[in-house]
């Protein structure tokens, strides 16, 4: 099992009211969303400093978020130059937002594990190759991973419980 990140209260004055002792969401609450969300929003920054948003499919595994995309796509060209990203589970009413850095998955063994998890989650055949992953429509791409530095949990039902988790992750 992956180690739990440290729980903190974020700076969010508008959600706190006068009393900051509202408690926090549990890491299990966040894990349930990270594991079960089908769609994610990926925010990257263009070279000229403008943010870019695009939906993407992801697999959460061992405290990291894996995805594939064409290296020529706007998002990939952005995070190749600036590896910092924000990525959230969909459904803004209750969501987990991850802040971290994107890396290429170099390990074939790791790619094979993620390919199996991806196929199980999305029912779409994918296999590890020498350099990346290949989908059943014969498109081959790198496999990327977001290593988290911080995660935020926010839910409309209990906004005052907005929570921040900090990962002991030097590459995040």
């Amino acid at each position: 099992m992956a180690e739990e990140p440290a729980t903190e209260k974020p700076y969010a004055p508008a959600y706190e009211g006068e009393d900051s002792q509202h408690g926090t969401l549990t890491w299990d609450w966040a894990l349930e969303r990270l594991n079960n969300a089908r769609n994610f929003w990926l925010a990257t920054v263009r070279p000229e400093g403008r943010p870019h948003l695009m939906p993407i499919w992801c697999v959460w595994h061992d405290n990291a978020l894996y995805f594939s995309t064409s290296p020529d796509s706007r998002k990939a060209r952005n995070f190749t130059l600036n590896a910092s990203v924000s990525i959230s589970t969909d459904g803004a009413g209750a969501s987990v937002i991850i802040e971290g850095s994107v890396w290429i998955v170099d390990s074939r063994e790791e790619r094979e594990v993620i390919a199996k998890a991806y196929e199980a989650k999305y029912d779409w055949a994918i296999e590890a190759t020498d350099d990346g992953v290949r989908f059943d429509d014969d498109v081959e791409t790198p496999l990327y991973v977001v290593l988290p530095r911080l995660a935020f949990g926010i839910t409309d039902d209990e906004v005052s419980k907005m929570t921040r988790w900090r990962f002991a992750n030097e590459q995040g």
Partner: protein
Amino acid sequence: MSNEPTAERPYMPGYGVPSTIDGVVPWSWALERLNINRDYWLATVRPDGRPHLVPVWGVWLEGEFFFSSGAEARKAKNLRANPHCTLSIENCSQPVMVEGTARHVTDRAELQSVCAPYEAKYAMAMHVIEDGISDADGNGGPVFAIRPVIVFGMPDMATATRWRFNR
């Protein structure tokens, strides 16, 4: 909005988006979704270059998206330093993404014009304060208006459309 934007095809290699203009959707398709959506995602850029992503509520008026923020909230700090931002509706399956610039709304009449549509949409009474708008509990702050520059809409890959505003 007085001027309709120009429809184009987005550049999305490997996703099966046609290269011809036939089959794009009209701007009204995007505008309707931007109007009725409840929870939006707002991406801004921190001074150190990292993106920041947070849910926001807001209303479309006269072709701009109006939302309020805590004065010291991360998004407000980011927008004061770099007004470039991207806003999306919450539907990832048929998404609409708005890339634009945010301006700080200071005109009292303009701030007042935001309150009634906001209350109608979210059933939350708002009033104008010294620098922005606030609810009855005192939660509020400055108001920003996002003016679209480029908008992406994707009913599906075959109809994916990019709109460019020529101003």
